[in-house]
């Protein structure tokens, strides 16, 4: 889920984003079209394989989920928050989500791609969030959605009780 930029050129730009490094140089979008352009650049550049959505200029999703700069959630089938990750980047921990899902559905059967290039074959399955069928994983961020590494359970996660295969 794309939300307002964290380190745009006209605000707090990071050295790692400069053209001679990661080359991620965008000003803070002022219009939805600008957000769309950045989001599309991201999904194309990284061949992002997951469903993707964009918070509109009202920042409704960002405000509702205190999402900025990056954060993870799991919503369970009953529509309740089942996992609430910490505020990124320091408390952004995809491994906790992976652990929650593994406890719920069993061990992960394949490793997550370590680089964007490795994820390329999956890019053909990429879809807009709005057009895609519901999947267990939703949209975006440059960080990997799932990192293969066991991590202690989050204090804020509710232990799953049902185990079933994905």
């Amino acid at each position, binding site marked *: 889920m794309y939300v307002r930029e964290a380190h745009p050129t006209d*605000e707090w730009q990071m050295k790692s984003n400069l053209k001679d490094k990661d080359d991620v140089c965008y000003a803070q979008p002022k219009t939805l079209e600008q957000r769309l352009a950045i989001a599309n650049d991201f999904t194309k550049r990284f061949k992002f394989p997951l469903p993707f959505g964009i918070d509109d200029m009202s920042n409704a999703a960002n405000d509702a989920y205190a999402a900025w700069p990056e954060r993870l959630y799991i919503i369970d089938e009953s529509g309740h*928050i089942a996992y609430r990750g910490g505020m990124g980047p320091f408390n952004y921990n995809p491994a906790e989500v992976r652990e929650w899902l593994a406890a719920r559905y069993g061990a992960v059967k394949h490793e997550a791609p370590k680089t964007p290039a490795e994820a390329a074959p999956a890019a053909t399955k990429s879809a807009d*969030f709005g057009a895609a069928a519901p999947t267990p994983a939703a949209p975006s961020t440059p*960080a990997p959605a799932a990192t293969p590494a066991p991590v202690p359970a989050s204090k804020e996660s509710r232990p799953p009780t049902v185990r079933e295969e994905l």
Partner: protein
Amino acid sequence: MNRFWKWTSGIFGVLLVAAFAGLSYMAGSPKDAYGMVRYALPHMHRGTLKVGSDAPDARIVALDGVSRFHIRERTGNRPLVLIFGSFT
């Protein structure tokens, strides 16, 4: 200015410099410390959601820029993982 106020303002100044130095060290440089205070802190919120809270709904735009949908439309069958972030 009496002695008390001299000491008070001196200590306050030293604390201010120490806080900025610590922030600069944590952020990477004085420029980054300024960026953090000026641009990041106003947007960082812990939020009120807790595990067990009703998941809020919000209208989301699809990548095509035309389609719209609501987060809660995507819940119900299976758990939904929301990954919030940006490019930079």
